[in-house]
Protein backbone atom coordinates (compact mmCIF):
# COMPACT_ATOMS: atom_id res chain seq x y z
CA UNK A 1 0.00 0.00 0.00
CA UNK A 2 1.30 3.45 -0.91
CA UNK A 3 0.81 5.90 1.92
CA UNK A 4 0.31 9.47 0.77
CA UNK A 5 0.78 12.39 3.19
CA UNK A 6 -2.99 12.84 3.35
CA UNK A 7 -3.51 9.15 4.11
CA UNK A 8 -1.02 9.26 6.95
CA UNK A 9 -2.49 12.46 8.39
CA UNK A 10 -6.03 11.13 8.16
CA UNK A 11 -5.08 7.76 9.70
CA UNK A 12 -3.52 9.46 12.72
CA UNK A 13 -6.36 11.97 13.09
CA UNK A 14 -8.92 9.16 13.07
CA UNK A 15 -6.88 7.05 15.47
CA UNK A 16 -6.48 9.97 17.85
CA UNK A 17 -10.21 10.59 17.85
CA UNK A 18 -11.09 6.95 18.34
CA UNK A 19 -8.63 6.25 21.07
CA UNK A 20 -10.57 5.44 24.21
CA UNK A 21 -8.84 5.06 27.58
CA UNK A 22 -11.06 3.58 30.29
CA UNK A 23 -11.32 5.67 33.45
CA UNK A 24 -10.42 4.11 36.81
CA UNK A 25 -11.33 5.37 40.28
CA UNK A 26 -7.70 5.14 41.35
CA UNK A 27 -6.84 7.88 38.83
CA UNK A 28 -9.12 10.26 40.69
CA UNK A 29 -7.54 9.30 44.03
CA UNK A 30 -4.16 10.35 42.61
CA UNK A 31 -5.60 13.57 41.26
CA UNK A 32 -7.44 14.38 44.47
CA UNK A 33 -4.21 14.20 46.43
CA UNK A 34 -2.89 17.07 44.31
CA UNK A 35 -5.92 19.30 44.68
CA UNK A 36 -6.00 21.95 47.40
CA UNK A 37 -7.85 20.88 50.54
CA UNK A 38 -11.51 21.74 50.72
CA UNK A 39 -11.93 24.77 52.93
CA UNK A 40 -15.54 24.25 53.88
CA UNK A 41 -15.03 21.40 56.33
CA UNK A 42 -12.12 23.00 58.11
CA UNK A 43 -13.98 26.28 58.00
CA UNK A 44 -16.98 24.76 59.71
CA UNK A 45 -14.75 23.50 62.50
CA UNK A 46 -13.17 26.87 63.05
CA UNK A 47 -16.55 28.60 62.91
CA UNK A 48 -17.90 26.23 65.52
CA UNK A 49 -14.83 26.57 67.76
CA UNK A 50 -14.86 30.32 67.37
CA UNK A 51 -18.54 30.46 68.25
CA UNK A 52 -17.96 28.52 71.47
CA UNK A 53 -15.09 30.81 72.49
CA UNK A 54 -17.08 33.94 71.60
CA UNK A 55 -20.07 32.71 73.62
CA UNK A 56 -17.78 32.15 76.57
CA UNK A 57 -16.37 35.66 76.32
CA UNK A 58 -19.75 37.28 75.81
CA UNK A 59 -21.30 35.50 78.76
CA UNK A 60 -18.34 36.46 80.94
CA UNK A 61 -18.12 40.14 80.09
CA UNK A 62 -21.66 41.16 79.20
CA UNK A 63 -23.53 39.68 82.17
CA UNK A 64 -22.17 41.45 85.27
CA UNK A 65 -22.79 38.74 87.81
CA UNK A 66 -21.90 40.86 90.90
CA UNK A 67 -24.53 43.54 90.47
CA UNK A 68 -27.30 41.11 89.71
CA UNK A 69 -26.47 39.09 92.79
CA UNK A 70 -26.39 42.08 95.12
CA UNK A 71 -29.70 43.36 93.80
CA UNK A 72 -31.22 39.98 94.45
CA UNK A 73 -29.92 39.97 98.00
CA UNK A 74 -31.39 43.41 98.70
CA UNK A 75 -34.74 42.45 97.26
CA UNK A 76 -34.82 39.26 99.26
CA UNK A 77 -34.06 41.17 102.46
CA UNK A 78 -36.91 43.59 101.86
CA UNK A 79 -39.39 40.88 100.90
CA UNK A 80 -38.60 38.73 103.88
CA UNK A 81 -38.94 41.61 106.34
CA UNK A 82 -42.28 42.66 104.85
CA UNK A 83 -43.61 39.16 105.28
CA UNK A 84 -42.57 39.31 108.93
CA UNK A 85 -44.08 42.76 109.62
CA UNK A 86 -47.50 42.11 108.13
CA UNK A 87 -48.71 39.51 110.64
CA UNK A 88 -47.39 41.44 113.68
CA UNK A 89 -49.40 44.55 112.65
CA UNK A 90 -52.54 42.62 113.00
CA UNK A 91 -51.58 41.26 116.45
CA UNK A 92 -50.90 44.32 118.59
CA UNK A 93 -50.31 48.12 118.37
CA UNK A 94 -46.91 47.73 120.16
CA UNK A 95 -45.77 45.30 117.49
CA UNK A 96 -47.04 47.65 114.79
CA UNK A 97 -44.90 50.50 116.13
CA UNK A 98 -41.95 48.17 116.39
CA UNK A 99 -42.62 46.97 112.88
CA UNK A 100 -42.43 50.54 111.60
CA UNK A 101 -39.11 50.92 113.34
CA UNK A 102 -37.95 47.71 111.70
CA UNK A 103 -39.08 48.97 108.31
CA UNK A 104 -37.18 52.22 108.78
CA UNK A 105 -34.10 50.27 109.81
CA UNK A 106 -34.44 48.02 106.78
CA UNK A 107 -34.54 51.02 104.46
CA UNK A 108 -31.45 52.28 106.23
CA UNK A 109 -29.87 48.86 105.83
CA UNK A 110 -30.72 48.81 102.13
CA UNK A 111 -28.98 52.17 101.67
CA UNK A 112 -25.90 50.77 103.30
CA UNK A 113 -26.24 47.71 101.11
CA UNK A 114 -26.27 49.81 97.96
CA UNK A 115 -23.13 51.58 99.10
CA UNK A 116 -21.58 48.27 99.84
CA UNK A 117 -22.02 47.18 96.21
CA UNK A 118 -18.79 48.98 95.49
CA UNK A 119 -16.91 46.75 97.88
CA UNK A 120 -16.43 43.00 97.61
CA UNK A 121 -19.24 40.49 97.55
CA UNK A 122 -18.30 39.13 100.93
CA UNK A 123 -18.32 42.50 102.62
CA UNK A 124 -21.56 43.45 101.01
CA UNK A 125 -23.32 40.31 102.05
CA UNK A 126 -22.14 40.53 105.65
CA UNK A 127 -23.10 44.19 105.74
CA UNK A 128 -26.64 43.41 104.68
CA UNK A 129 -27.09 40.73 107.27
CA UNK A 130 -25.36 42.68 110.03
CA UNK A 131 -27.43 45.77 109.37
CA UNK A 132 -30.68 43.88 109.48
CA UNK A 133 -29.71 42.05 112.63
CA UNK A 134 -28.57 45.32 114.16
CA UNK A 135 -31.97 46.85 113.38
CA UNK A 136 -33.74 43.99 115.05
CA UNK A 137 -31.43 44.04 118.02
CA UNK A 138 -32.21 47.69 118.59
CA UNK A 139 -35.88 46.86 118.80
CA UNK A 140 -35.24 44.56 121.67
CA UNK A 141 -33.16 47.17 123.52
CA UNK A 142 -35.62 50.02 123.03
CA UNK A 143 -38.72 48.07 124.10
CA UNK A 144 -39.72 46.07 127.13
CA UNK A 145 -38.48 42.56 127.37
CA UNK A 146 -41.80 40.94 126.90
CA UNK A 147 -42.59 37.50 125.66
CA UNK A 148 -43.96 38.96 122.43
CA UNK A 149 -40.75 40.83 121.75
CA UNK A 150 -38.68 37.74 122.35
CA UNK A 151 -40.95 35.90 120.00
CA UNK A 152 -40.43 38.64 117.44
CA UNK A 153 -36.69 38.52 117.87
CA UNK A 154 -36.74 34.79 117.45
CA UNK A 155 -38.74 35.23 114.28
CA UNK A 156 -36.31 37.88 113.05
CA UNK A 157 -33.40 35.58 113.65
CA UNK A 158 -35.26 32.74 111.97
CA UNK A 159 -36.02 35.06 109.10
CA UNK A 160 -32.36 35.90 108.70
CA UNK A 161 -31.50 32.24 108.64
CA UNK A 162 -34.15 31.58 106.01
CA UNK A 163 -32.71 34.43 104.07
CA UNK A 164 -29.23 33.05 104.39
CA UNK A 165 -30.49 29.71 103.16
CA UNK A 166 -31.98 31.32 100.08
CA UNK A 167 -28.85 33.17 99.13
CA UNK A 168 -26.45 31.24 97.03
CA UNK A 169 -23.05 32.15 98.32
CA UNK A 170 -20.02 32.45 96.13
CA UNK A 171 -17.17 30.30 97.38
CA UNK A 172 -14.99 33.22 98.38
CA UNK A 173 -17.57 34.39 100.88
CA UNK A 174 -18.15 31.01 102.46
CA UNK A 175 -14.94 30.98 104.48
CA UNK A 176 -15.51 34.49 105.83
CA UNK A 177 -19.05 33.66 106.78
CA UNK A 178 -18.03 31.60 109.75
CA UNK A 179 -19.43 31.02 113.23
CA UNK A 180 -17.05 33.62 114.68
CA UNK A 181 -19.16 36.40 113.27
CA UNK A 182 -22.34 35.13 114.87
CA UNK A 183 -22.10 37.02 118.24
CA UNK A 184 -22.71 40.20 116.22
CA UNK A 185 -26.02 38.86 115.11
CA UNK A 186 -27.92 39.29 118.33
CA UNK A 187 -27.89 41.04 121.66
CA UNK A 188 -30.07 38.55 123.49
CA UNK A 189 -29.29 35.06 124.66
CA UNK A 190 -32.34 33.63 122.99
CA UNK A 191 -31.51 35.03 119.62
CA UNK A 192 -27.87 34.10 119.96
CA UNK A 193 -28.67 30.54 120.88
CA UNK A 194 -31.26 30.21 118.17
CA UNK A 195 -29.10 31.82 115.52
CA UNK A 196 -26.05 29.80 116.56
CA UNK A 197 -27.88 26.52 116.45
CA UNK A 198 -29.44 27.32 113.11
CA UNK A 199 -26.28 28.65 111.51
CA UNK A 200 -24.44 25.60 112.67
CA UNK A 201 -26.94 23.53 110.78
CA UNK A 202 -26.48 25.55 107.60
CA UNK A 203 -24.51 23.85 104.91
CA UNK A 204 -23.37 26.79 102.85
CA UNK A 205 -20.41 25.05 101.18
CA UNK A 206 -21.12 24.03 97.59
CA UNK A 207 -19.79 20.62 96.62
CA UNK A 208 -17.30 21.21 93.86
CA UNK A 209 -15.62 17.81 93.49
CA UNK A 210 -17.45 15.39 91.26
CA UNK A 211 -16.92 11.94 89.86
CA UNK A 212 -18.74 11.25 86.62
CA UNK A 213 -19.36 8.72 83.90
CA UNK A 214 -20.18 9.62 80.33
CA UNK A 215 -21.08 8.27 76.93
CA UNK A 216 -20.73 10.03 73.65
CA UNK A 217 -21.08 9.77 69.90
CA UNK A 218 -19.70 11.81 67.07
CA UNK A 219 -17.89 12.00 63.78
CA UNK A 220 -14.21 12.00 62.94
CA UNK A 221 -12.66 13.06 59.68
CA UNK A 222 -11.04 10.25 57.77
CA UNK A 223 -7.31 9.80 58.48
CA UNK A 224 -6.72 9.67 54.75
CA UNK A 225 -7.85 11.97 51.98
CA UNK A 226 -10.61 10.39 49.94
CA UNK A 227 -13.42 11.62 47.80
CA UNK A 228 -16.15 9.18 48.67
CA UNK A 229 -16.31 9.42 52.41
CA UNK A 230 -14.68 11.85 54.74
CA UNK A 231 -16.31 11.18 58.10
CA UNK A 232 -16.14 8.15 60.37
CA UNK A 233 -18.65 7.61 63.16
CA UNK A 234 -17.25 7.29 66.68
CA UNK A 235 -18.59 6.06 70.00
CA UNK A 236 -17.01 6.57 73.37
CA UNK A 237 -17.48 5.70 77.00
CA UNK A 238 -15.54 7.20 79.87
CA UNK A 239 -15.25 8.29 83.47
CA UNK A 240 -13.46 11.06 85.28
CA UNK A 241 -13.10 13.65 88.00
CA UNK A 242 -14.30 17.22 87.76
CA UNK A 243 -13.47 20.10 90.07
CA UNK A 244 -16.07 22.69 89.23
CA UNK A 245 -16.40 25.67 91.51
CA UNK A 246 -17.94 28.81 90.08
CA UNK A 247 -15.37 30.21 87.72
CA UNK A 248 -12.34 28.18 86.81
CA UNK A 249 -11.92 24.47 87.51
CA UNK A 250 -10.56 21.42 85.78
CA UNK A 251 -11.48 17.97 84.56
CA UNK A 252 -9.44 14.81 84.11
CA UNK A 253 -10.71 11.54 82.79
CA UNK A 254 -10.28 8.40 80.76
CA UNK A 255 -12.20 7.51 77.60
CA UNK A 256 -12.40 4.44 75.44
CA UNK A 257 -13.12 5.49 71.89
CA UNK A 258 -14.24 3.32 68.98
CA UNK A 259 -13.86 4.67 65.46
CA UNK A 260 -15.69 2.92 62.63
CA UNK A 261 -13.62 3.04 59.48
CA UNK A 262 -14.27 1.57 56.07
CA UNK A 263 -11.69 3.17 53.85
CA UNK A 264 -8.40 2.73 55.67
CA UNK A 265 -6.40 0.12 53.82
CA UNK A 266 -2.73 -0.67 54.06
CA UNK A 267 -1.01 -2.90 51.54
CA UNK A 268 2.30 -4.70 51.77
CA UNK A 269 4.26 -6.64 49.25
CA UNK A 270 7.14 -8.94 49.99
CA UNK A 271 9.14 -11.59 48.22
CA UNK A 272 10.46 -14.56 50.15
CA UNK A 273 13.20 -16.66 48.62
CA UNK A 274 13.25 -20.33 49.44
CA UNK A 275 13.33 -23.03 46.80
CA UNK A 276 12.18 -20.60 44.19
CA UNK A 277 10.43 -17.52 45.48
CA UNK A 278 7.02 -16.55 46.80
CA UNK A 279 5.41 -13.17 46.35
CA UNK A 280 3.23 -12.20 49.29
CA UNK A 281 0.65 -9.45 49.01
CA UNK A 282 -0.99 -8.45 52.27
CA UNK A 283 -3.96 -6.19 52.69
CA UNK A 284 -5.03 -4.77 56.06
CA UNK A 285 -8.46 -3.20 55.98
CA UNK A 286 -9.34 -1.53 59.28
CA UNK A 287 -12.97 -1.75 60.36
CA UNK A 288 -12.79 -0.43 63.91
CA UNK A 289 -10.01 1.35 65.77
CA UNK A 290 -10.05 1.37 69.57
CA UNK A 291 -8.37 4.32 71.18
CA UNK A 292 -7.66 5.10 74.80
CA UNK A 293 -7.80 8.80 75.63
CA UNK A 294 -6.74 10.67 78.76
CA UNK A 295 -8.38 14.07 78.46
CA UNK A 296 -7.54 16.95 80.78
CA UNK A 297 -9.13 20.36 80.49
CA UNK A 298 -9.38 23.72 82.16
CA UNK A 299 -13.03 24.62 82.66
CA UNK A 300 -14.88 27.82 83.22
CA UNK A 301 -18.27 27.36 84.87
CA UNK A 302 -20.96 29.98 84.87
CA UNK A 303 -24.30 28.91 86.34
CA UNK A 304 -25.33 25.86 84.35
CA UNK A 305 -22.85 26.32 81.54
CA UNK A 306 -19.27 25.12 81.42
CA UNK A 307 -16.74 26.01 78.77
CA UNK A 308 -13.59 23.99 78.51
CA UNK A 309 -10.25 24.06 76.78
CA UNK A 310 -8.19 20.91 76.99
CA UNK A 311 -5.80 18.41 75.56
CA UNK A 312 -6.08 14.70 75.25
CA UNK A 313 -3.17 12.29 74.77
CA UNK A 314 -4.42 9.30 72.78
CA UNK A 315 -3.19 5.76 72.39
CA UNK A 316 -4.41 3.33 69.75
CA UNK A 317 -4.98 0.26 71.86
CA UNK A 318 -6.44 -2.21 69.43
CA UNK A 319 -8.44 -2.69 66.26
CA UNK A 320 -10.77 -4.93 64.35
CA UNK A 321 -9.47 -5.51 60.86
CA UNK A 322 -9.88 -7.70 57.85
CA UNK A 323 -6.62 -9.30 56.78
CA UNK A 324 -6.18 -10.86 53.40
CA UNK A 325 -3.03 -12.35 51.96
CA UNK A 326 -2.26 -13.78 48.59
CA UNK A 327 0.74 -15.93 47.72
CA UNK A 328 1.84 -15.68 44.10
CA UNK A 329 -1.57 -14.26 43.28
CA UNK A 330 -3.57 -16.97 45.06
CA UNK A 331 -5.63 -15.94 48.07
CA UNK A 332 -4.33 -17.78 51.13
CA UNK A 333 -5.88 -15.80 54.04
CA UNK A 334 -9.01 -13.75 54.37
CA UNK A 335 -10.21 -13.30 57.93
CA UNK A 336 -10.95 -10.81 60.68
CA UNK A 337 -8.42 -10.08 63.41
CA UNK A 338 -8.63 -8.16 66.67
CA UNK A 339 -5.59 -6.48 68.14
CA UNK A 340 -3.45 -5.79 65.07
CA UNK A 341 -2.04 -2.27 64.68
CA UNK A 342 -0.04 -2.67 61.47
CA UNK A 343 0.69 0.65 59.82
CA UNK A 344 -0.88 2.72 62.58
CA UNK A 345 0.95 5.18 64.80
CA UNK A 346 0.16 4.40 68.41
CA UNK A 347 0.30 7.83 69.98
CA UNK A 348 -1.58 11.01 69.29
CA UNK A 349 -2.46 14.35 70.79
CA UNK A 350 -5.78 16.11 70.50
CA UNK A 351 -6.43 19.66 71.63
CA UNK A 352 -10.10 20.26 72.30
CA UNK A 353 -12.67 22.93 72.94
CA UNK A 354 -15.93 22.04 74.62
CA UNK A 355 -19.19 23.27 76.02
CA UNK A 356 -21.46 21.67 78.62
CA UNK A 357 -24.92 22.48 79.78
CA UNK A 358 -26.51 21.14 82.96
CA UNK A 359 -29.81 19.76 81.74
CA UNK A 360 -31.05 18.44 85.06
CA UNK A 361 -29.49 17.90 88.45
CA UNK A 362 -26.52 15.61 87.88
CA UNK A 363 -26.98 15.35 84.10
CA UNK A 364 -24.86 17.33 81.65
CA UNK A 365 -25.07 17.52 77.88
CA UNK A 366 -21.80 18.38 76.20
CA UNK A 367 -20.40 19.11 72.80
CA UNK A 368 -16.73 18.85 72.02
CA UNK A 369 -14.54 19.65 69.04
CA UNK A 370 -11.07 18.17 68.66
CA UNK A 371 -8.32 17.92 66.12
CA UNK A 372 -5.60 15.28 65.94
CA UNK A 373 -2.14 16.82 65.81
CA UNK A 374 -0.21 13.65 65.09
CA UNK A 375 -0.60 11.38 62.10
CA UNK A 376 -2.46 8.20 63.04
CA UNK A 377 -1.29 6.27 59.98
CA UNK A 378 2.33 5.42 59.31
CA UNK A 379 2.90 7.18 56.00
CA UNK A 380 5.88 4.97 55.17
CA UNK A 381 3.48 2.06 54.82
CA UNK A 382 0.62 3.89 53.18
CA UNK A 383 0.29 4.87 49.53
CA UNK A 384 -1.91 7.93 49.20
CA UNK A 385 -2.31 11.21 50.98
CA UNK A 386 -2.94 11.44 54.70
CA UNK A 387 -5.10 14.14 56.20
CA UNK A 388 -3.01 16.56 58.22
CA UNK A 389 -5.19 17.40 61.22
CA UNK A 390 -8.41 15.43 61.09
CA UNK A 391 -11.21 17.13 62.99
CA UNK A 392 -13.61 15.32 65.25
CA UNK A 393 -16.74 16.40 67.00
CA UNK A 394 -18.85 14.61 69.54
CA UNK A 395 -21.87 15.00 71.74
CA UNK A 396 -21.65 13.57 75.25
CA UNK A 397 -24.04 12.87 78.06
CA UNK A 398 -22.39 13.06 81.47
CA UNK A 399 -23.86 11.71 84.69
CA UNK A 400 -22.46 12.98 87.98
CA UNK A 401 -22.29 10.02 90.28
CA UNK A 402 -20.68 11.41 93.48
CA UNK A 403 -20.20 14.90 94.81
CA UNK A 404 -17.92 15.71 97.70
Amino acid at each position, binding site marked *: *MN*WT*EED*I*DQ*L*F*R*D*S*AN*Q*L*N*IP*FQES*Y*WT*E*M*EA*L*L*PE*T*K*TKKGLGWIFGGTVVCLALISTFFFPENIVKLENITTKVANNQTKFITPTNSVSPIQAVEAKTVEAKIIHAENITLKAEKSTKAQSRNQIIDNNILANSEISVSSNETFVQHENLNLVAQNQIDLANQIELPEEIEEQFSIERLPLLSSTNQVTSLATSNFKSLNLKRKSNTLFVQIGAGLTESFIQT*SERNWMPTLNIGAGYQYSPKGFGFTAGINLNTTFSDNLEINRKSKVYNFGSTNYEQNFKYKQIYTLELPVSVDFRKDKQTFSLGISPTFIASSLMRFSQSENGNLSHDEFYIGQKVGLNHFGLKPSVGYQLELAKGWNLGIQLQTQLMKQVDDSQFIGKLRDNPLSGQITIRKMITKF
Partner: protein
Amino acid sequence: MHINSDILKACASNDRKAQKQLYEYCFKFLMPLCLRYHNNDEDARSSLNIAFLKIIKGIDSIDVEAVNFNAWVKKITTNTLIDEYRKSKIHLTHYQGKETERELDFYAEVIQNDAESDFGCAAIMKLLSQIPTVSAHVFNLYVIDGYSHREIGEKLKISEGTSKWHLSTARKLLREKLEKMNASLPQEMVI
Protein backbone atom coordinates in the same frame (compact mmCIF):
# COMPACT_ATOMS: atom_id res chain seq x y z
CA MET B 1 -21.73 13.16 30.44
CA HIS B 2 -22.64 16.82 30.28
CA ILE B 3 -20.72 19.62 31.94
CA ASN B 4 -22.69 22.77 32.59
CA SER B 5 -21.78 26.12 34.09
CA ASP B 6 -23.10 25.10 37.55
CA ILE B 7 -20.60 22.25 37.71
CA LEU B 8 -17.79 24.55 36.61
CA LYS B 9 -18.71 27.13 39.25
CA ALA B 10 -18.84 24.38 41.89
CA CYS B 11 -15.38 23.26 40.76
CA ALA B 12 -14.08 26.77 41.20
CA SER B 13 -15.40 26.81 44.77
CA ASN B 14 -13.50 23.57 45.47
CA ASP B 15 -16.48 21.22 45.51
CA ARG B 16 -14.93 17.74 45.37
CA LYS B 17 -17.93 16.02 43.79
CA ALA B 18 -18.07 18.50 40.96
CA GLN B 19 -14.30 18.32 40.50
CA LYS B 20 -14.47 14.55 40.20
CA GLN B 21 -17.25 14.82 37.65
CA LEU B 22 -15.19 17.28 35.63
CA TYR B 23 -12.08 15.10 35.89
CA GLU B 24 -13.96 12.08 34.54
CA TYR B 25 -15.27 14.20 31.70
CA CYS B 26 -11.88 15.68 30.84
CA PHE B 27 -10.11 12.35 31.19
CA LYS B 28 -11.98 10.90 28.22
CA PHE B 29 -10.69 13.38 25.68
CA LEU B 30 -7.54 14.71 27.35
CA MET B 31 -5.92 11.40 28.18
CA PRO B 32 -5.59 10.39 24.50
CA LEU B 33 -4.11 13.82 23.88
CA CYS B 34 -1.57 13.31 26.68
CA LEU B 35 -0.73 9.83 25.45
CA ARG B 36 0.27 11.31 22.09
CA TYR B 37 3.03 13.21 23.84
CA HIS B 38 4.18 10.50 26.21
CA ASN B 39 5.45 6.97 25.89
CA ASN B 40 3.57 5.56 28.86
CA ASP B 41 0.32 5.89 30.80
CA GLU B 42 1.92 7.12 34.03
CA ASP B 43 3.65 10.09 32.44
CA ALA B 44 0.56 10.90 30.45
CA ARG B 45 -1.60 10.84 33.56
CA SER B 46 0.91 12.95 35.44
CA SER B 47 0.71 15.62 32.72
CA LEU B 48 -3.06 15.35 32.67
CA ASN B 49 -3.17 15.93 36.43
CA ILE B 50 -0.94 18.99 36.18
CA ALA B 51 -3.15 20.34 33.41
CA PHE B 52 -6.28 19.62 35.43
CA LEU B 53 -4.87 21.57 38.37
CA LYS B 54 -4.38 24.53 36.02
CA ILE B 55 -7.92 24.09 34.74
CA ILE B 56 -9.38 24.12 38.25
CA LYS B 57 -7.35 27.21 39.17
CA GLY B 58 -8.23 28.92 35.91
CA ILE B 59 -12.00 28.37 35.91
CA ASP B 60 -12.43 31.50 38.00
CA SER B 61 -10.73 33.60 35.35
CA ILE B 62 -12.99 32.62 32.42
CA ASP B 63 -16.58 33.40 31.57
CA VAL B 64 -17.96 29.87 31.74
CA GLU B 65 -21.07 30.81 29.78
CA ALA B 66 -19.17 32.38 26.88
CA VAL B 67 -15.98 30.34 26.49
CA ASN B 68 -15.84 27.10 24.51
CA PHE B 69 -14.83 25.01 27.48
CA ASN B 70 -13.56 22.00 25.52
CA ALA B 71 -11.30 24.13 23.36
CA TRP B 72 -10.02 26.04 26.39
CA VAL B 73 -9.26 22.83 28.29
CA LYS B 74 -7.53 21.32 25.28
CA LYS B 75 -5.39 24.42 24.84
CA ILE B 76 -4.32 24.37 28.49
CA THR B 77 -3.44 20.69 28.27
CA THR B 78 -1.45 21.10 25.07
CA ASN B 79 0.45 24.03 26.57
CA THR B 80 1.13 21.98 29.67
CA LEU B 81 2.45 19.09 27.60
CA ILE B 82 4.72 21.40 25.63
CA ASP B 83 5.95 23.06 28.83
CA GLU B 84 6.70 19.66 30.31
CA TYR B 85 8.53 18.69 27.18
CA ARG B 86 10.59 21.87 27.21
CA LYS B 87 11.49 21.39 30.88
CA SER B 88 12.63 17.82 30.37
CA LYS B 89 14.20 18.38 26.94
CA ILE B 90 17.80 18.02 28.04
CA HIS B 91 17.03 15.10 30.31
CA LEU B 92 15.08 13.33 27.57
CA THR B 93 17.76 13.60 24.89
CA HIS B 94 20.24 12.16 27.34
CA TYR B 95 17.90 9.47 28.53
CA GLN B 96 16.23 8.53 25.29
CA GLY B 97 19.28 6.75 23.95
CA LYS B 98 19.27 4.25 26.76
CA GLU B 99 15.58 3.54 26.53
CA THR B 100 15.09 3.40 22.81
CA GLU B 101 16.19 -0.15 22.13
CA ARG B 102 14.21 -1.64 24.94
CA GLU B 103 11.19 0.44 24.09
CA LEU B 104 11.40 -0.38 20.44
CA ASP B 105 11.40 -4.07 21.31
CA PHE B 106 8.43 -3.53 23.61
CA TYR B 107 6.44 -1.52 21.10
CA ALA B 108 7.40 -3.77 18.24
CA GLU B 109 5.86 -6.62 20.16
CA VAL B 110 2.72 -4.62 20.88
CA ILE B 111 2.38 -3.57 17.28
CA GLN B 112 2.73 -7.13 16.11
CA ASN B 113 0.09 -8.35 18.54
CA ASP B 114 -2.35 -5.62 17.62
CA ALA B 115 -1.65 -5.97 13.97
CA GLU B 116 -2.64 -9.60 14.05
CA SER B 117 -6.22 -8.56 14.59
CA ASP B 118 -6.46 -5.01 13.38
CA PHE B 119 -4.66 -1.74 12.77
CA GLY B 120 -5.56 -0.80 16.37
CA CYS B 121 -5.81 2.90 17.23
CA ALA B 122 -3.48 2.45 20.18
CA ALA B 123 -0.93 0.64 18.04
CA ILE B 124 -0.99 3.36 15.42
CA MET B 125 -0.66 6.12 17.98
CA LYS B 126 2.24 4.29 19.56
CA LEU B 127 4.13 4.58 16.29
CA LEU B 128 4.55 8.21 17.21
CA SER B 129 6.66 7.21 20.18
CA GLN B 130 9.05 5.40 17.86
CA ILE B 131 10.09 8.46 15.96
CA PRO B 132 12.21 11.33 17.35
CA THR B 133 10.37 13.28 20.03
CA VAL B 134 10.49 16.70 18.38
CA SER B 135 9.28 15.30 15.07
CA ALA B 136 6.45 13.49 16.84
CA HIS B 137 5.46 16.68 18.67
CA VAL B 138 5.49 18.73 15.47
CA PHE B 139 3.38 16.06 13.76
CA ASN B 140 0.94 16.03 16.69
CA LEU B 141 0.65 19.79 16.83
CA TYR B 142 0.33 20.32 13.08
CA VAL B 143 -1.71 17.34 11.91
CA ILE B 144 -3.91 16.49 14.89
CA ASP B 145 -4.14 19.68 16.94
CA GLY B 146 -4.20 22.05 13.96
CA TYR B 147 -1.45 24.51 14.89
CA SER B 148 0.44 26.42 12.19
CA HIS B 149 4.20 26.12 11.74
CA ARG B 150 4.63 29.63 13.14
CA GLU B 151 2.74 28.69 16.33
CA ILE B 152 4.63 25.42 16.59
CA GLY B 153 7.90 27.30 16.22
CA GLU B 154 6.94 29.61 19.07
CA LYS B 155 5.90 26.79 21.31
CA LEU B 156 8.86 24.53 20.71
CA LYS B 157 11.36 27.39 20.35
CA ILE B 158 12.34 26.38 16.84
CA SER B 159 12.12 28.16 13.50
CA GLU B 160 9.25 27.67 11.07
CA GLY B 161 11.61 26.00 8.63
CA THR B 162 12.78 23.52 11.26
CA SER B 163 9.18 22.79 12.12
CA LYS B 164 8.44 22.01 8.47
CA TRP B 165 11.50 19.78 8.29
CA HIS B 166 10.38 17.86 11.40
CA LEU B 167 6.91 17.38 9.94
CA SER B 168 8.33 16.04 6.75
CA THR B 169 10.68 13.72 8.66
CA ALA B 170 7.84 12.50 10.86
CA ARG B 171 5.68 11.67 7.86
CA LYS B 172 8.55 9.86 6.19
CA LEU B 173 9.35 7.77 9.26
CA LEU B 174 5.71 7.00 9.93
CA ARG B 175 5.21 5.90 6.35
CA GLU B 176 8.11 3.48 6.68
CA LYS B 177 6.70 2.11 9.91
CA LEU B 178 3.22 1.76 8.51
CA GLU B 179 4.57 -0.10 5.51
CA LYS B 180 6.53 -2.36 7.81
CA MET B 181 3.39 -3.02 9.81
CA ASN B 182 1.46 -3.69 6.66
CA ALA B 183 4.04 -6.14 5.46
CA SER B 184 4.03 -8.03 8.76
CA LEU B 185 0.25 -8.62 8.60
CA PRO B 186 -0.82 -12.14 7.64
CA GLN B 187 -1.67 -12.33 3.95
CA GLU B 188 -5.32 -13.15 4.52
CA MET B 189 -5.74 -9.97 6.54
CA VAL B 190 -4.28 -7.71 3.86
CA ILE B 191 -6.87 -7.73 1.15
